[in-house]
């Protein structure tokens, strides 16, 4: 088994794959074999700890199972145009909040605005490196 220095929780809970796995046509994600464009994958895992200090894994969700974690989508869904996500992948329009063209906050909070390729999201397009 070798020297066990650290176990990465990401590999066990479908949130990362090794480079070798990523080179294959399909990897295990969201409880099935499928292709995903990045070795890092979005997910949420839930754990419970009892009085004895024992830890239990109770739940994990991936892909669109995380949509409820984005309450702002609720507001988009209330508008006549909805999400209108017509890009190369649904969330291609999403940028870091400091990189949008339009400053929402009056104090000019958008400090980054660095050159960013369209559809630069790592969830379906090019990964951010």
């Amino acid at each position, binding site marked *: 088994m070798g020297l066990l220095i*650290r*176990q990465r929780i990401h590999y*066990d809970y479908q949130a990362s794959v090794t480079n070798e796995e990523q080179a294959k046509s399909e990897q295990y994600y969201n409880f099935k074999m499928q292709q995903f464009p990045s070795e890092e994958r979005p997910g949420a895992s839930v754990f419970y*700890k009892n009085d004895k*200090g024992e830890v239990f*894994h109770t739940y994990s969700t991936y892909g669109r199972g995380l949509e409820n974690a984005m309450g702002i989508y609720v507001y988009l869904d209330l508008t006549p145009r909805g999400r209108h996500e017509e890009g190369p992948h649904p969330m291609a329009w999403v940028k870091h909040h400091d990189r949008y063209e339009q400053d929402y906050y009056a104090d000019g909070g958008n400090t980054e605005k660095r050159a960013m390729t369209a559809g630069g*999201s790592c*969830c379906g397009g090019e*990964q951010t490196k």
Partner: protein
Amino acid sequence: MTQTTAEHPKVVSQEKWLAARKELLAKEKELTRQSDALAAERCKLPWVKVEKDYVFDTPAGKKKLADLFEGRSQLVIYHFMFGPDWAEGCPSCSIIGDHIDGNAPHPANRDVTIMAVSRAPLAKIEGFKKRMGWRFKWASSFGSEFITTTRLP
């Protein structure tokens, strides 16, 4: 972005709008009740005991999985896409980060610790957090490690 479209739904009287809205409301309520039933079922999902000692780097030093609960009995880990050699975290995960930040104190007072974990080294995570103006807890699982060959099914 401001956009106008030539095609849009019909413009109707207030009465007709109200009738259409109530029809949609009935469907919305049906979905809400289904969602409640699903949430109740989720609470009954069986558990699996975690036997591994996962180790994380945090601003307060090395922590085990059991330490991340911070005295609470429930822990939600968001697997934030931020690879060891990436310059920054994923934009789509960052919109989720925007939601966690500012909101985490609410579940923290309902026995739920919400935090993020990434494979990026802690220094990179801390730098990105500062840039994004975030304060939520975010641990790193970076480091030399033993990679399991048997994945949890």
